[in-house]
């Protein structure tokens, strides 16, 4: 007799509830489709609106025809193709990379408050970037030429990777991650990275200071196709690799031992996840400076709607993160037009109170 037969008897005895109670697969799929559509609209809006008066219809006409015979002037053409397009695409990629990194970190640390910026990964990446700006000149010329535009993203990536590994080593014991240790270690690591960054800034010459200042403003202005080609591939690879970790991350929410019991190669999963997060965050920090809270807000809101299943949460986070970043950027561009606000200010203004709300709401449940 198999267990099924024994169990079946008792099932028939009871009134069987809705066959799909507790199943959020349909909602998750619907949300994903909606997010794809919203992403397309957000990208279109971001490319067609701005301080220039290039009208939406003309811009879209130009996008599709590609010919010279449209109503778009040469000036508008440059604005649309060389300023707005790389900015929109990079903004979307950065939002996607940050939000998905947040979701991965939270799954890996088994904690809804893990965020690349909050736990110091962004500071580590920033340190890497500043290190490259200040000390890059003293590297052998051949190395710098070989790295080219990739030097800054790679340095930020390395900084982020080291920080993530360090953080994981500190905060995890016996497969369990302590929230308090993680957040406090994040503060300490951020402070250390900031201190070393400070030393470097002190050492920097005038030109380097200018580079650092512009870079650290944390803004999407000054995005170019060159930056997109340098940082985009790293983020894109991370965005494409991470969804393959979904089932493993689902298992890890029950603990690393339980994930192993269910057939997951835990150590390998952790390394791939950490490298992907460091890559995504490092590349985004390299081009836009530190943009906080996207990684906490996006996955958290999505979990409320579609649940924590990473098979849907990861792609949905990427799309929603991209949309949110474009929205914040449009706000940043228009709120004090013709000047613009650094986007990091907007995400922090909205994100920090949200973080506090999550903290207060979860405090009772988790006994913090």
């Amino acid at each position, binding site marked *: *007799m*198999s*267990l*099924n037969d*024994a*169990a*079946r008897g*008792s*099932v028939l005895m*009871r*009134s*069987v*509830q*809705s*066959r*799909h*109670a*507790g*199943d*959020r697969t349909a909602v998750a799929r619907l949300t994903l489709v909606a997010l794809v559509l919203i992403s397309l609209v957000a990208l279109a809006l971001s490319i067609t609106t701005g301080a220039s008066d290039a009208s939406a219809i003309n811009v879209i006409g130009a996008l599709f025809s590609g010919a010279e015979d449209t109503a778009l002037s040469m000036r508008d053409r440059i604005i649309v193709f060389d300023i707005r397009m790389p900015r929109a695409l990079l903004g979307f990629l950065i939002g996607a990379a940050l939000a998905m990194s947040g979701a991965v970190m939270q799954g890996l640390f*088994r*904690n*809804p408050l893990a965020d690349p910026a909050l736990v110091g990964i962004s500071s580590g990446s920033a340190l890497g970037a500043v290190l490259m700006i200040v000390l890059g000149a003293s590297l052998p010329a051949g190395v710098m030429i070989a790295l080219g535009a990739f030097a800054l993203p790679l340095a930020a990536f390395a900084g982020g990777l080291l920080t993530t590994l360090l953080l994981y080593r500190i905060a995890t014991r016996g497969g369990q991650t302590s929230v308090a240790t993680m957040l406090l270690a994040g503060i300490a690591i951020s402070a250390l990275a900031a201190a070393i960054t400070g030393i470097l800034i002190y050492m920097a010459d005038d030109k380097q200071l200018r580079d650092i200042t512009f870079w650290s403003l944390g803004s999407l202005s000054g995005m170019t196709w060159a930056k997109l080609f340098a940082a985009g591939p790293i983020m894109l690879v991370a965005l494409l690799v991470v969804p393959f970790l979904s*089932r*493993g991350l*689902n*298992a890890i*929410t*029950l*603990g690393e*031992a*339980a*994930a*192993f*019991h*269910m*057939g*997951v*190669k*835990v150590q390998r999963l952790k390394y791939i996840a950490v490298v992907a997060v460091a890559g995504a965050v490092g590349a985004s920090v390299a081009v836009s400076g530190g943009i906080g809270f996207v990684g906490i807000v996006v996955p958290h809101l999505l*979990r*409320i709607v579609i*649940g*924590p*299943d990473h098979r849907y949460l990861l792609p949905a986070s990427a799309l929603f993160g991209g949309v949110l970043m474009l929205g914040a950027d449009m706000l940043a561009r228009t709120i004090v037009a013709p000047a613009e606000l650094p986007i990091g200010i907007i995400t922090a203004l909205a994100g920090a109170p949200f973080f506090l709300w999550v903290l207060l709401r979860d405090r009772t*449940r*988790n006994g913090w």
Partner: protein
Amino acid sequence: MITAKNLTVSLSGKTIVHGVALEAKAGQLTAIVGPNGSGKTTTMKALAGELPSKGEITINGHALSALEPWQLAVKRAVLPQAATIAFPFTVREIVRLGLTVGPNRHAERIDAITTEALAAVDLSGFAGRFYQELSGGEQQRVQLARVLSQIWEPVLDDEPCFLMLDEPVSALDIRHQLTIMQLARRYCEGGGGVIAVMHDLNLTAMFADHMVMMRAGRIERAGRPADVMTDDAMEAVFGCRMRINGVPATGVPFVLPHTASA
């Protein structure tokens, strides 16, 4: 069959399990009992492949160390002691993890098995509830349903599967203790094997085929409960002078699971 020979486990430099040898046969419920800190859970974790150990462990004749996690996951499933989950999973989503994470041979029956596994642990109708909102005992049974769904067929490809349960009834009321022990029994009758770390000696006596008594990282006694549960063993293993089948002095009520009728 799961066997261990000369099993030694050290954690942070301290040896917890000293040269243990045991056999857990398919079709049998093997219970490991002993005082706190005697190495029961550590032994179980080593058998599950979760802890590095010295000695030889085999599962159905395969060396444990040669099996990849996903190969192990279809031969044995493990119920850990209490687990907290930080994310708002529904009960159905938790149970489904047992079917979707590892190698999945039941793709078309996920919903059906989830429902049956919940019924087996007496949680029919709980599929839509949030795990975090359940009581400790209910959470323990949800986890058991997940573990059960992972190796739903007690025999797969002519090889028995094994449930490894670490204190499966520790958080349960007496009715559900019986429910879960009967479920383990049925798994054995279906051809699978069960290894359970137990604290309740009465339930162990009722349901175990083979009883392993551990003390200070070593096996003190092993055999059928009727053979090993003696006054002498109680004192040697637990350090308690007690009489097996003794009736207490009158005045203090007692109730034994043995007296339950269906």
